């Protein structure tokens, strides 16, 4: 044999070694525990996460925690309210695909059926909990009930799914239950969904300190869930609500204090995990299902629009042992949790599950190699409205109202988010070609989701809360 060949062979072997070594560093966190924490209804711009631009220190614990992980500055929810969103979290399907687009799939005066993807979809639907359970995980969900209830199908794959008592319960209720369960399951692999309604309009803030109120408020509101519910309904009926600038300041202060209180429980929870030595083998994802409108577009609450205050959500991901970036500006969709977790854990799934998942793994984005995507959102909130939207990677946002109460149809809005991040100026007249192309992208996306874009788009009443649709209900 020619001796000159020896260095070449050596080089090849070294190269192979490098390749094998790199492959060995996959997966990034094998057999790690997984905890997903949902701050329900927390608007990104009302957190004190880096880059949110907010001037109040509403989430000091979350901000601290984010230092150990990655903050996503452009995370978009596939829907603007609770019921469809959590199903999307756990199935990586768009709402129009998993079909839990309202609390009820059938609702009339004599008969109602709770929307459940297990019954609404012809294909078997796999959830994140399903797959983790199959891979030896103990699975527990601890929620604040209401829209996070398990009967939407979300219970699928969970050993334990707490969604009682009836109402909008906060972390002060769900966090101790989760912690207790974790303590008893910490010697095995576990998956936990921890959810709290603390920031939600229907959560009752027990003790308002005025911590974030910088005016002497003398207006008529007390900040109660009942008042916010009334304002929500007034906004839906009229398109706007009658409030003063002081009222807005007051409501924001109430909202910020709810967030602050939720953040305090979150901090306690993370401390406890740290004390139990779980931080080195637990993937933690913190996010919100949607934001809350604080009068940015004339109304309050959520579900009815697809403006940024509702679909741009906070997202912090921490995967132990991973050399991740502090901030990712990659535009991503909250559909990505399931593929991300499976990727990080190195769990291989079959082709059926692969093709079910419409999201993508965030592991690349966590390592700074993320590629932004066009992201789509939708809402059919209470059958009051049917809206679809797209945000492109170059900062255009197109919102298509297919139909809305009482008789609005086919209304299109175009915003340049780079110049106008809070969507104050509809520029559809100035950029009709952009609007046309985005309309076709949204329509193509809807077709891909199996939706007939020609409708019909039926306006009706499908309640989320027991006080709605009284005219057709005996409840």
């Amino acid at each position, binding site marked *: 044999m020619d001796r000159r060949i020896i260095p070449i062979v050596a080089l090849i072997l070294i190269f192979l070694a490098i390749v094998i070594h790199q492959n060995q560093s996959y997966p990034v966190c094998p057999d790690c525990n997984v905890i997903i924490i949902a701050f329900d209804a927390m608007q990104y711009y009302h957190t004190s996460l880096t880059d949110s631009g907010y001037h109040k220190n509403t989430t000091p614990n979350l901000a601290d925690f984010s230092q150990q992980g990655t903050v996503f500055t452009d995370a978009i929810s596939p829907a603007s309210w609770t019921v469809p969103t959590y199903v999307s979290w756990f199935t990586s399907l768009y709402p129009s695909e998993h079909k839990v687009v309202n609390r009820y799939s059938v609702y009339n005066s004599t008969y109602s059926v709770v929307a459940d993807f297990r019954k609404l979809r012809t294909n078997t639907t796999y959830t994140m909990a399903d797959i983790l359970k199959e891979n030896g995980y103990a699975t527990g969900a601890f929620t604040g009930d209401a829209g996070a209830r398990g009967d939407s199908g979300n219970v699928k794959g969970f050993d334990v799914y707490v969604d009682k008592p009836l109402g909008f319960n906060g972390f002060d209720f769900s966090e101790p239950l989760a912690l207790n369960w974790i303590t008893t399951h910490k010697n095995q692999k576990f998956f936990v969904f921890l959810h709290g309604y603390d920031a939600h309009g229907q959560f009752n803030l027990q003790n308002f300190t005025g911590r974030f109120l910088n005016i002497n408020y003398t207006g008529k509101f007390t900040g109660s869930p009942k008042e916010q519910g009334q304002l929500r309904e007034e906004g839906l009926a009229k398109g706007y609500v009658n409030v003063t600038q002081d009222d807005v300041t007051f409501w924001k202060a109430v909202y910020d204090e709810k967030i602050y209180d939720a953040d305090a429980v979150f901090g306690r929870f993370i401390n406890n995990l740290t004390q139990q030595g779980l931080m080195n083998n637990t993937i933690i994802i913190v996010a919100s299902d949607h934001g809350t409108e604080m009068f940015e577009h004339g109304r309050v609450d959520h579900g009815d629009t697809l403006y940024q205050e509702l679909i741009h959500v906070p997202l912090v991901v921490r995967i132990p042992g991973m050399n991740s970036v502090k901030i990712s500006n990659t535009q991503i969709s909250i559909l990505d949790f399931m593929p991300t977790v499976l990727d990080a854990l190195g769990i291989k799934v079959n082709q059926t599950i692969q093709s079910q998942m419409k999201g993508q793994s965030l592991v690349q984005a966590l390592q700074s190699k993320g590629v932004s995507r066009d992201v789509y959102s939708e809402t059919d909130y209470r059958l009051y409205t049917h809206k679809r939207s797209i945000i492109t990677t170059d900062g255009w946002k197109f919102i298509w109202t297919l139909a809305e109460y009482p008789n609005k149809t*086919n209304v299109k809005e175009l915003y340049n988010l780079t110049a106008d991040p809070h969507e104050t100026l509809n520029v559809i007249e100035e950029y009709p*070609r952009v609007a*046309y192309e985005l309309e076709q992208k949204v*329509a193509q996306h*809807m077709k891909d989701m199996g939706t007939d*874009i020609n409708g019909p788009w039926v306006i009706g009443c499908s309640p989320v809360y027991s006080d709605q649709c009284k005219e057709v209900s005996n409840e």
Partner: protein
Amino acid sequence: MKKYYIPPILVLAVIILVVVAFPSQQQDNVSCNNCNVIIVTSEAIRPDHLGIYGYQRNTTPNIDSFFRKGFVFENDFAQAPNTLPSHMTILTGLYPSHHKVIDVNSNNSLSNEYYTLPEILKLYDYKTAGFHSSNPHMNPKFGFSRGFDIYKRIGVVYHDDVLDFINSSENSKFFIYIQSTNVVDPYVAPHPYDTMFDNNYTGKIVGNSDEFEALMRKNNLTWQTSDFDKVRLLYWNLVNKSDPRDIRHLEVLYDANIYWTDLFFGRIINSLEELGILNHTIVIFGAGHGEEFGEHGGFLHEKLYDETIHVPLLIYVPGARPKIIENQVGNVDIMPTILSILNIPQPENIDGRSLKFLMENPNANDPNQILYSEFVSQMAVRTPEWKMIESLNNSVVSYELYNLKKNPQEKINLIDKNLTQENELKSDLQNYEVKFNSTFTDLKLINSTFIGYP
């Protein structure tokens, strides 16, 4: 080292094997970014009366020689046999039941959920002009003028209007839509065209336009819309519909009108050539509908048999290799086809499909060749092999079923013969009608002499 001898014959064999095993795929890229678009349509043109489709009379020398460089669609069908719904379908890519601009006596305007071809092209910086010669049908009130910078009525001769527009659009991309009625009845032509295909007719039909206009004057009639039914009656009353010689003469005069139409088409092409813009202009020749000459006991275009819905479709794309395409396609496909050749996104809520894939590869897999056509009291579904026509007359719904391969004349009705196609096509029709909420007008409610005309 030992040298091996490889015989040349072996080398040759290997080369042949490679060539045979990996044939070069004849996959063309048919596209034309930023090209001008001209669509010339004429009413009542049957492909079997055009030379390029094999007609024995020399009716269309200009169309024939020009489109030998283009795509010849042998099986294109109109979605309606009458002008108004058919042209709305061409311009929107929507079926008549979907765009709902069907009734010339209504004020139904195209809904703003839908885009017209010129509206989209305008978004992409095209200058747009629409020229039509059918005022009641192509009326702006239906939405036909949407997206056109210029939308105007033209006469028999339209060459100067088109050239004026091209000159005024300077160097901008342009889109021109021409709808000409030069072929529709009454079939008359000036000398020498009136006798060019038949100079020994001695019957009563007045085919010379000067003579016919003299006759009109004698009857106090003009070409105004309000007189039109009477003018047509005047003409048709001279026709002996049971005399084959008269029917033949009608076709001769019809052919003279086609010849004339071809002449104008040739002048447009010559001008484009002189302007040096033919190398970046897509040219399309098509028709709103066909015409019947007694095949099913009638005349004009008031039924859904092939003679009234089978239409020519010829597309010239600069630089693209000419091809003949046999697949069944529809006028509903014209809009998305043009957009995809221009690489402009098409609206997603349309019913037509881009034919670009067939233009690039005529052998491409194309399993879904199904089309619908409709007319007042009738609805038809057509596949390459079968056709079903549903009719509403005197509150009774009836069906006809034809095997187009065995009986292209559509004379042998195969309904109630327990054919599987019967149920399949019935359910296709039903799905179509439900999907678009189609409406039928009972034939007995129509008391106009000429159905579908004002």
